[in-house]
């Protein structure tokens, strides 16, 4: 039986949620919290979104979506155009490459995988920006940012897993 229009619309709406959630994280990243020093160490939430969905539902986080989120992140954060785009796409690549390895493994393994990928990504971002600006950028806040991002991963991933269980069951 051909699924009805409503059914298809419903599925489309559900399928768009990974992108929408990651986009929401992107906006959330840009809100001023007025906490001293927090803006510099604010966890890189979009990276969590991209990594998570690339591991658990790669069909719903295509390269186009990752590219769009990276570009928007560059625009909003004032970074040179393409830095986050490249870094996020590489995160996607790394997540997809290791996906088979992750399947069936415990959550801790996925988390460790994220820590490795995020570390590499932030390191690369630092390198790229240092190259663009022609000097070694102070990286202290990047370390804090890395720590917070890694620590937040399980919380967000838990929420995403619940979301996946509720709305994104493969039918």
């Amino acid at each position, binding site marked *: 039986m051909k699924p009805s229009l409503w059914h298809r619309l419903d599925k489309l709406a559900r399928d768009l949620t990974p992108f929408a959630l990651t986009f929401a994280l992107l906006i959330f990243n840009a809100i001023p919290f007025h906490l001293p020093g927090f803006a510099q160490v604010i966890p890189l939430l979009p990276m969590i979104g991209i990594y998570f969905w690339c591991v658990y539902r790669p069909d719903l986080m295509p390269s186009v979506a990752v590219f769009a989120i990276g570009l928007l992140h560059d625009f909003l954060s004032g970074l040179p155009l393409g830095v986050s785009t490249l870094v996020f796409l590489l995160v996607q690549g790394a997540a997809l490459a290791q996906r088979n390895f992750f399947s069936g493994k415990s959550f801790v393994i996925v988390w460790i995988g994220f820590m490795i990928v995020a570390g590499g990504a932030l390191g690369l971002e630092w390198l790229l920006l240092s190259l*663009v600006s022609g000097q070694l950028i102070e990286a202290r806040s990047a370390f804090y940012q890395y720590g917070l991002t890694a620590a937040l991963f399980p919380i967000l991933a838990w929420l995403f897993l619940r979301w996946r269980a509720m709305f994104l069951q493969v039918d």
Partner: protein
Amino acid sequence: MLVGKMEPAAFERARAHVTDAVAPILDAVSRPLDVLQDTIGEGKTLLALREENTRLREERDRLLQWQTIARKLETENIALRELLQFVPASDASSISARVIGDAGGAFARTMILNAGSREGVRKGQAVINGSGLIGRIQEVGRRSSRLLLLADLNSRIPVVIELSRARGVVAGTNGDTLSLVHLPPDVLTEPGDRIVTSGHGGALPPGIPVGVVATVSDNVISVVPFVDPSRLELVRVLDYGLDGIIDFNDIRSGSLN
């Protein structure tokens, strides 16, 4: 990245448009947060009221002394100006704006303001609050603009040391302190020297407080800015009446006279 380097003007326009599009969302989301912050702040103030009062009284007494000195200097200054037929710097008017985005992350120090070309904000204008310089306007959209903070790597502000009047440039380091560079070689600075804008280049009014020299070593002079940008909610964009810094578009179209 390469496109951004090759076509900075187009890239800047695109960025301004995107920021413009997201500005209403950011504005809406940041408002309740501001209210929450204000409420918490209110509670804290109430608790510290007595202490605050004593401190303020002391400060008032001290400031009254300064006022006397300032009055004396002002009269003296007017008299001397009349003697010299001095042309005073033009007065700046200002545009108030709310900080609606604080998106920098670890490698960029910028903020998004909810005022753009519609309100009269232009590229290169100085952004200040009561304590001093915060940064300058980097990009302008129709209803939003991007503020490049002093701490950003790309920030360069022409300054003078307040007492010795030696010219230099304050550059952002992406860290908590700024570095003072391009000073004349024979100038001596020491911790505690106040740094103010010089007005060179014409985009910033002279005399806006920037920061205080914190440490001086062989080749690095670090400056602590007066303003901590992380707590900013409202800022003033100074309209100095000049056209701000040179625009890429002007150079391209040859309209720069």
